[in-house]
C-alpha cells in the first residue's frame, strides 16, 4: 500500500473553487448523454447463444419418443440435488426412458452441469434454455414436472 499525497492546490484554484466547478461540469455533460439503462419489461435484454437460463427438457426428431434415457447422471452430478428422475422401459426400442422428471427451480443454481453430463445424442435431453424469468407467486410453482419442462408456461409479459 502506498500513501498518495494530494497535490497542493494553487491559489487560483482555491479561490475560485475550480475543482468544484469542474466536477459540476462533468455531471452537466452527463445530463445530456443517452441513458445506458434499458427499460426492462418493455425492452428485453439481448440474449447471447451461450446464456444459461433455467434447464429444460427437449426431444429430437431423429430419436423416436422421449430423448431422455433416465440414466440419472444429471441427478447425480447436480450440486443442489434439484433433479429427480424415474425411468420406465422404452415404448419403442430398447433401454429406458424418463417416466417422472422433476426439477426444482427453487434450488437450481443454473450451473449447467446437467447439460454437460447428459449422454444423449445428437443433442442433450436436458439443456439450458434462454428463459430467465423465474418469479412465481407460489413456491410450489417452482417445482416443475416433465410436462412443464417440455412446454413451459410462457411468463406473462409485463408491458407498461
Amino acid at each position, binding site marked *: 500500500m502506498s500513501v498518495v499525497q494530494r497535490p497542493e492546490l494553487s491559489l487560483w484554484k482555491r479561490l475560485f473553487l475550480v475543482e*468544484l466547478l469542474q466536477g*459540476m461540469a*462533468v455531471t*452537466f455533460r452527463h*445530463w445530456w*448523454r*443517452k*441513458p*445506458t439503462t434499458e*427499460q426492462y419489461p418493455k425492452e428485453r435484454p439481448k440474449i447471447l447463444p451461450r446464456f444459461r437460463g433455467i434447464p429444460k427438457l427437449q426431444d429430437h426428431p431423429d430419436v423416436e419418443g422421449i430423448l431422455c434415457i433416465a440414466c440419472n447422471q444429471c441427478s447425480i452430478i447436480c450440486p443442489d440435488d434439484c433433479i429427480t428422475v424415474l425411468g420406465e422401459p422404452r415404448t419403442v426400442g430398447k433401454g429406458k426412458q424418463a417416466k417422472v422428471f422433476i426439477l426444482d427451480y427453487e434450488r437450481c443454481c443454473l450451473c449447467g452441469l446437467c447439460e454437460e453430463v447428459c449422454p444423449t445424442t445428437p443433442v442433450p435431453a436436458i439443456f439450458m434454455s434462454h428463459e430467465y424469468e423465474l418469479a412465481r407467486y407460489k413456491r410450489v410453482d417452482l417445482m416443475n414436472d416433465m410436462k412443464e419442462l417440455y412446454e413451459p408456461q410462457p411468463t406473462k409479459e409485463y408491458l407498461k
Partner: protein
Amino acid sequence: MKEQLIQYLAVPMLQIAAIIGVMLLCVMYLVLWERKLIAFMQVRMGPMRVGYHGLLQPIADVVKLLLKEDVVPKAADRWVHLISPIILMIPALACFAVIPFTGTSFEVGAFTIPLVNYDVPALTVTSWVADLNIGLLYFLAISSLGVYGLVLAGWSSNSKYSMLGSLRSAAQMISYEVPLGLSIVAILMLSGTASLVGIVEAQQEAGHWWLFWAPLGVPLLWPQFIGLFLYFVAAVAETNRAPFDLPEAETELVAGFHTEYSGMKFAFMFLAEYLNMILAALIVSVLFLGGWLPVTFGIPGLSELFGNFLPFLGGAGAAITGFFWLALKVFLVLTVYLWLRATFPRYRYDQLMSLGWKWLIPMGLAHVMVTALFMLLRG
C-alpha cells in the same frame, strides 16, 4: 365591519389555502424532477412507469405514503413522536406568508355569491399574505424553529441512529444559521428595509438585481456574488441537503432522524424538507435575483418587452408575468440544488463544522464590511 372581516380574515384564508395547495403540488413535482434530473446525470432514465415518462409518479408516491401502516416504536415517547413531524411542517409553511410571488395586485370587483345571496365588496388581493415590516427577520426566526422537529423526532424515537442524526442536525443547523444571517445583512443594507416586498421594490428602483450591484461603477465587480454563494451554501446546509446531508446520511445512520418514521408522519417530514428547499430558492430569488422582476431586467428595451408579455390581459397579465419570472428563477435555483446533490460526495462531520465556523462566518463578516465600505465610498 363585514368588509374588514373579509379583507382581514377571508382573503388571507383563501391566500393561505392557495399557497399551501400550490406548494404541495410543487413539492410533488420537485421530487419527480429531482429523481429525473439525478437519473439523467447518472445516465439513467428515472421513473418511467406511472404516466408519460413518470409524470404521475408523485401521485402514486403520495397514495402509497398515505396508505402505509404507521409504525410507532414500543419505547417511543408517543406524543412527542406524533407532534415532531407537525413541528417540522408548521414553520416550513408559515414562512411562505411573507414571500411576495408577484408585484402587481389583483383587483376583484364587487360580486354576489349566488345561492346565499352574499354581497362581497370590491377587494384588492395581493400575492403575499402579509407584507411584514420585519419580513426577513420573520423568515429567519420561523425557519430556525424547524430544528425542533428534527431534534424531537430523533429523541422520541428512542433509537441510537435517530438520536445521532438529530444531534448532528441540530448542531449543523445552529452553526449554519449564523452565515445565513450574515449573508443577508448586505442585502438589508442595500435595500434599507427588511420587508421582502420592499427589497424587490428597491431592486426595481435601483434598476438591477442586487446580485449585479456594481459598486463604484466598476461593471464586473459584483460583491453580492459572494453573498449569493454564502447564502446558497448555508441554505443547502440548513435544509440538510447533499452534500451536507449528514443528519440523514443513509450509509451511516440508516435514515437519521426519521429512521423510526413511516406512513403519514414520514410524508410530513419529507414534505417539510422539500418545502424548505423551495423556500430557500424563493428567498434567493427574491433577495438576489430580483423576485418577480423579469430575467431581462436592467437591459434597456428587452426589460419593457418581457416585463409584461401578456399585455392583452392588462393588470392580470403583468401579475402572471411576475409569477412566471419568479417561478423560472426558483426552478433554476432548485435545479442547481439538485445538481449539487448529483455531483458532490458528502462532507465529513468535522469538515462540515470547520467549513461553517472557520470559512463561512469570517467570509460573511468580511462580506458585510466590504459592502458597507463600498456603500460609504459611493456615498
